[in-house]
Every structure is written in C-alpha cells, then in structure tokens.
C-alpha cells in the first residue's frame, strides 16, 4: 500500500514538534518513545502497520484546538484516532504525522430523557451509551459488532452501522449534533438537539468523513426507548437461492425486521464449531431474522415470517421462546469472525453492498472467484440491506497469499459495483479501498468530493492518504475542468 511520501523536513523537526506538543499537553499526554509508539502502529486492519512520528492524547477541547492550530500553522499532518477498531485502516498512522488520540475524551456529559438525547465525548464507547441509559429503558440503536470497544467518535467518522440498522438506521440517522475542531483550530457546533440543522447540512457530511474534515470533540445522539420484546427466528435452507428469495419476500410483505442476517455453509460450520449453539449443519444457508416491538407485534410477525419461510422451502425453522435462546441464535453470528481464526490463520473481511435482488448471482460469482484465486471464502452478511461480508481465508505466512487475498477482495468489490452496488457499506474506505474508488466514481466525481475536503482543509493536513487515490492540490482542483473522463494533471503523485 503506497502512502504519501514521507516529508524528511518534517522528520528533521521532530524534536521541535514534540516540544511544541508538550507545551500544549503536559505530562504523559505526549508519547514519543519508540517502544511506546508501537501500540499505535495499526488499527484493526492489521495488515498495514506504521508507527506514528508522535502520539498526543489531549484531554480538553482547548488542547485539541491548540494542537490542530499549531500543526496547521507549521504544516504538520495529523491522523485522528478513536479506539483504533477501524477495519479499513482509517487511523493508520503516517511516519511524518502526529497521531491525535481521543481516548481521554471518555465522559458522558448529559442525558436528557425528555429530549431523548445523550451528549457524550467522542472517546465514550458505543456500548457505554446504551449502558448509561438502559436503566431508564432507553438505548442507542446503531450497534457495530465492535461496540464494546469502538468509540462514538470513531462511529461518527466512519458512519458505523450494525446488525440492527435495517430498521433503526446507521450512525448518520442517529446523530443530531457535534462539536468539532477544524484544522485551523476553530471550534464549531453543528446541529443540536433538534431534528434538522438550519442551512447546509454540514453535520451530514462530517458523519462518515473518515477523519478528513475535522476532529469531533462532542457528539449528541438520539436515544430510543428499548422495544418491549425481541424474538428471533433461525431458518435453514437447502440453497442460498431460496434463502435469498425468502429475504426478498419478507421485505416485499411489508415487514422490516430489526435485523436479518445470512450465513453460508462454511460460515455456519465454523461458527457452530466455535460456540456450539445448535446451528443446523445440514443446510446450505441460514437466516437469522429478528423482530422487535410490542409482544403482540413480535408474535404476529414471527408467524408471518415462518409462513413466508416455509413457502420459500425452508428446511428448518426455530423461533426463540426465551431471551437466552434469542441470544444463542446471535452468538454464532456474532462469533463468525473470530470463528474463522480456527479455520484459517488469517482472514480478510470485505464489506460491499449490492441491490438485494442481485444476491444469488453475486454469491455464485464470488464462489467462482474463490476457485479462480484458489482461496476459500465464507459469507456472512446483513441480508436485509444487501451488505455483504465475504471472509477470504488465507495464510499470511505462505508467500504471495496476502496479495492473492487482496486481489480476490478487489475482484469482489468490483463485482459489487458492477451490479449497481458500492465498495463499502459500513467499514469505510480508509487505505484499504482507496485505490478502488475510481471503480465506483468518475474522475470528476472524485474531484468534486476532494473540493469538499479542500473547503475544510485546504492544505490536506488531516488524515492524508485515506479515501482519495490521487493527491490533488486544492488550488489545482479549483481550476480543474474534466472532460469525458480524461485524467487531468498526470504529473500528480498517485499512491
């Protein structure tokens, strides 16, 4: 993975940079010893590692503003980091950049049950928000599988999803306001406790901007009353095609389940071997359908979905009758990723989204690609919204396998785009899918997105090397006109 060229002049100033940061954040908040930098060298996409030049862990908004202002004035790059659980390398450090860690912003500032909001600092974990409000019967809906560790600031940066976003939306649908600091060190507030902002929806573009537009220092999220009941169905099918048509029929009947997950045979077997929750092993595809709401609704919809499933040729169907049984149904799905660790030394998780109607065709082609690249693949995915997570199994110790896995992954993502889908449904572009962006966007579309970046960060100091495959200078983008896909400025570095 090619990253922006290291600026030796910045490295030569390292001592002065460390001293300047120490003047802003005293004590242990600045880390510059080589051994202490190691824990920050990657996020959850561990295939890519790079120790940062220096780590700074501010505790106040004033410190964040002073750090960014100093870096801006001194032309030093900044990589923001939340809990470091990104699966796309969103917080991969740069050798010549300051890594700005937000882990000390870990306080819940306010909870208001009448406005149904929680105001939290960005380092608060996703699950901690729910824990803080569950005593009053509320919860925070988006639930990425890393929710025990991932921070809400990182969720905002990545527009994180989760298994329940089919019904309750992703992060952007559940965030009402932020306080954020620009690269120039200006503290701005967007949105608030009301449902919509006045004027341009800048909050809408901050969410999912992968740390390229500013550093969020406070988040106001919507909290919801927890549904009265939740029940799940575990439905086995003799073919992926019949499971996929069951998904389509459920949606067509007007039911929006809280979650609807599919696993293919390799994923079912790996998960069952790992957690032994009683998944059927004689089926080709397994659906987990969760329904929530008033108990009358759950009971009614459980019957409806069972009726639809048997009409689509389900070979087994179990409805949860207790909370422990419901959780057992989910335990296998939630363990699917770690379970792969017992099947292969390494796995590579993809994240494309496709129109639901193309599911069967895409899975068949992924299977063909698996043969072509001679690497096994297991599929778990958010079937309700067409968000695939093919897990490519490989062994990094075998020369060339990582590269083959990456090539296989690229082919899957190209396939997703070719059928009308997208490169990433919830994990973000980061460094991982950066070079595939031109598969989905024309040169002029990418240029327009970079002009938005330039409006926030004209010197491209915030998280460079992520999201965009070509590093344009903002002044040139301002003048640029692209005609019929011709590539302007071929002299600019591509990485």
């Amino acid at each position, binding site marked *: 993975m090619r990253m922006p060229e290291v600026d030796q002049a910045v490295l030569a100033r390292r001592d002065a940079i460390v001293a300047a940061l120490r003047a802003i954040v005293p004590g242990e908040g600045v880390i510059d010893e080589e051994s202490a930098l190691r824990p920050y060298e990657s996020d959850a996409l561990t295939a890519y590692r790079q120790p940062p030049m220096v780590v700074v862990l501010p505790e106040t908004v004033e410190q964040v503003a002073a750090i960014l202002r100093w870096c801006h004035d001194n032309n030093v790059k900044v990589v923001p980091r939340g809990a470091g659980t990104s699966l796309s390398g969103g917080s991969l450090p740069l050798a010549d950049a300051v890594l700005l860690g937000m882990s000390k912003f870990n306080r819940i500032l306010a909870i208001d049950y009448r*406005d*149904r909001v929680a105001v939290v600092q960005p380092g608060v974990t996703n699950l901690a928000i729910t824990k803080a409000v569950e005593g009053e*019967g509320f919860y925070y809906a988006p639930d990425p599988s890393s929710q025990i560790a991932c921070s809400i600031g990182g969720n905002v940066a*990545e*527009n994180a999803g989760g298994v329940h*976003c089919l019904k309750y939306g*992703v992060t952007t*649908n559940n965030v009402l306001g932020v306080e954020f600091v*620009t690269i120039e060190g*200006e*503290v*701005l507030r967007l949105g608030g406790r*009301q*449902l*919509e*902002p*006045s*004027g*341009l*929806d*800048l*909050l*809408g*573009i901050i*969410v*999912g901007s992968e740390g390229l537009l500013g550093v969020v220092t406070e988040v106001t999220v919507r909290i919801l*009353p927890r549904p009265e009941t939740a029940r799940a169905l575990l439905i086995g099918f003799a073919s992926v095609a019949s499971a996929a048509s069951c998904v389509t029929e459920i*949606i*067509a009947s*007007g039911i*929006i389940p809280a979650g609807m997950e599919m696993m293919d045979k390799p994923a079912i077997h790996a998960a069952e071997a790992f957690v032994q929750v009683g998944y059927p092993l004689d089926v080709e595809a397994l659906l987990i359908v969760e329904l929530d*709401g*008033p108990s*009358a*609704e759950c009971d*009614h*919809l459980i019957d*409806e979905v069972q009726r639809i499933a048997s009409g689509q040729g389900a070979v087994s169907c179990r409805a949860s009758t207790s909370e422990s049984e419901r959780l057992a149904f989910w335990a296998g799905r939630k363990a699917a990723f770690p379970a792969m660790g017992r099947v292969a030394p390494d796995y590579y998780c993809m994240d494309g*989204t496709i*129109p*639901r*109607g193309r599911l069967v065709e895409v899975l068949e082609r992924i299977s063909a690609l698996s043969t072509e690249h001679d690497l096994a693949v297991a599929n778990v995915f*958010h079937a309700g*919204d*067409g968000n695939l997570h093919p897990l490519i199994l490989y062994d990094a110790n075998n020369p060339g396998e990582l590269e083959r896995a990456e090539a296989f992954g690229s082919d899957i993502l190209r396939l997703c785009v070719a059928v009308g*889908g997208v490169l*990433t*449904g919830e994990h*973000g*572009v980061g460094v991982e899918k950066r070079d595939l962006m031109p598969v989905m*966007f024309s040169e002029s*579309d*990418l240029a*327009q997105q970079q*002009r*938005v*970046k330039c*409006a*926030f960060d004209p010197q491209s100091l915030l998280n460079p090397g992520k999201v965009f495959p070509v590093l344009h200078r903002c002044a040139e983008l*301002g003048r640029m006109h692209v005609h019929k896909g011709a590539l302007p400025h071929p002299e600019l570095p591509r990485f």
Partner: protein
Amino acid sequence: MMAVHRPTTIEALCEVVQTAAAGGTTLAIRGGGSKSAIGAPIGGADTLDMTAFSGLIDYVPADLVLVAGAGTPLARIEALVADRGQMLAFEPFDPAPLFGETRGRATIGGVLAAGLSGPRRLSAGGARDHLLGFEAVSGRGEAMSGGARVVKNVTGYDLPKLIAGSWGRLAALTSVTLKTLPRPRATATLAIEGLGPEQAQAAMDAAMASHAEIAAAAHLPASDGAPAYTLFRLAGFDPSVEARCTLLPALLNAHGQLVRLDAAHAETLWAEVRDVTPLMNDRALWRILLPPSHGGGVALGLNERGADWLIDWAGGLVWACHNDAEMVRGMAHAVGGHATLIRGSEPMRARTPFLDPPAAGVARLAERVRRAFDPAGVFETGRFLDQPDAH
C-alpha cells in the same frame, strides 16, 4: 431582460450553467415553482427551468428503491409508490396552498432541495435520510453524482446529505434516488381533547418515552369551536396497532382521556398538521425546529405574544404565524432551536434571511463548501441574504 432556460439534456444544462458562470449571470433554479415565494425576492437572475428532467427512471419495489427525474411532480411519484403499496416515508408535502396557490406543481427535486418532511418524520426520518443518491450539474457546469442506489453505503463523502436541504445552492438536481418503504397495513389515531400546549407537551413526552412506538405526534390548538387535539398516530400490523391502542391510554392516563378517532376525521386532522392549513393567512409563517421537549413551552410563549401556531414532531417542530422576526427567532434561539421564514411580505423577506443565520464560523465554512460546488456564485441569486462576496 431576464431569460428563461429550459435545457432538456444534461449536456445542454452544463452549457447553460457554464455560460452563465462565464458571463456573470446568476440562475434561479425552478421546478414547479411551489416554493418561489420563499426567501428574498429575486431581481436579476435568469430562470433555470428543470421541468424537462421529468419522469420515472427506475423503480424496483422489492429493493425499496426509486429513481426519478428531479423535475417529476411529487404527486406523480406518490401515486406510483402507492400503487405498489409503498410510500415516501418522510411524508413530503406540497407547500403551494400556504401561498394561496393550487397544489400539484411541487417537484420531487424541489421537495428534496428544500428538505421538507411531514409528521411521519418523527419516526421515519427526514428527506435527508431517504435521499440515497442523486445526479446533478454543479455550479461549475459539470455533471456530477453522489451516493448510490443501495441503502447502506459509506463510500466517499455522504453528498446526498449535503444536497438535501441545500435549496439549490450547490447544484441543479437532474435525478434523485429515493428509499421507498412499505405502507403500514393499519393506522390508528388516538387523541386527547382540550389540553394546553404545555400539558400536550408533557403527554407527548410520556408517549415518546414509552413502548408505544408512536409514528407521529402533534398538537392542534382549539379553533372555531373545535377543541384542541393532541394527536398520536400508531401504524403497523393490525395486532400490534390494536395492542398499542390499549397500551397508550393506560400509559397516558394521568394526562387525559385518549379517544380513538374515526379514520376520516383523523385523516383530516393529520392533513391539517402536515399542510399547515390552520395557518393559511396573510401573516408571516415560521417553521421552528426545537429540542422536542421545548415545543409546548415555545408555543405557549408565542401564544402569549399573539401568534397562531401548531405543534408537530412531538414538540420538535412548531409552525407559527407572527410578523416579529426578532421575537420569533429569539424564542427559538433561547432553547437551542432555529426558525425558518417560510412565508412573509416582500419587504419582510427582503430584509430577513429566510434561513436562520448560523454562527459566524459555521457560516464561513458553509460559504467555502458552497464555493467548492459553485465557485462563480452562479446559483447565488440573492434569495438568501448571506453572500457578501457573491456578485
């Protein structure tokens, strides 16, 4: 003499915009014209008529996705999805009657550019949450697109969020990709009669904190002999709606007696809330967005100052008629909200920015974002009273 341009292809639209940008002309984007009386009166702009970009492009009900030309009438889209048992869940509405004009001209592009959503926004999300993707021509005169046709997508910046509610200041929309949703099988409306705004707010707060899964909640004050109604809409599958029709009266027992309205009466009242029909008059009309618990208090304050009003979104939206801009905006700001001037006399609109001005730093950033799409200010018609450096 101000010209009217009606391009029929994206290429022709690019040329119109490029020519205007090069010649220092400004363009007022126009769909059906149903919102042309919003904002400062426009003097010297050419009209960019987008009605040629009309028609259904693709609709896959099973994927819950619809693609249509931005100039397609809203009414046509609503009829199309209704035919398939679906709906635009953000409940857009045609504001023409607010200006004494006939309904039916509003286009889907105009609705999204204005970010207008109705009562169901409370539970289903707003226009911003249902715009999955778009195609447009930017102020640079370049064809561009954003988003995609799948519900779950984090590839690149979320430009559809920026476009929804941008009032045509970034780009002229040519097509929109929308999320559609199944129409609920059953709907019921329960109401408490005779509450004041703060009592109504307390009842709505209690309902929203409950398991009753309120689809919409609004309050209409008493008028012309009709009592005040605090309305709760429940929607979903029959057994669930019936169960909640039993649950909610028990939950709200302390707030008053809930009665189930007959369907036709309920439909009339919800249409009044959505279309703001009780406030069709000659006074200035404000759309005030608030932290929801403050809806009743703000309505009471406005009432004491002689305003007519109604409450939607369980308190998160107050519609009010009053000619004192400073007073209305002051009340909204005091609780962290903001107020949009939807209707006003020409002199009032000429001096009062219709969008509540944001803090200076945010305004500077928004200006930079606008210039990223429209460097020459070709869409800066003077309607917004906030662009000192545009021509």
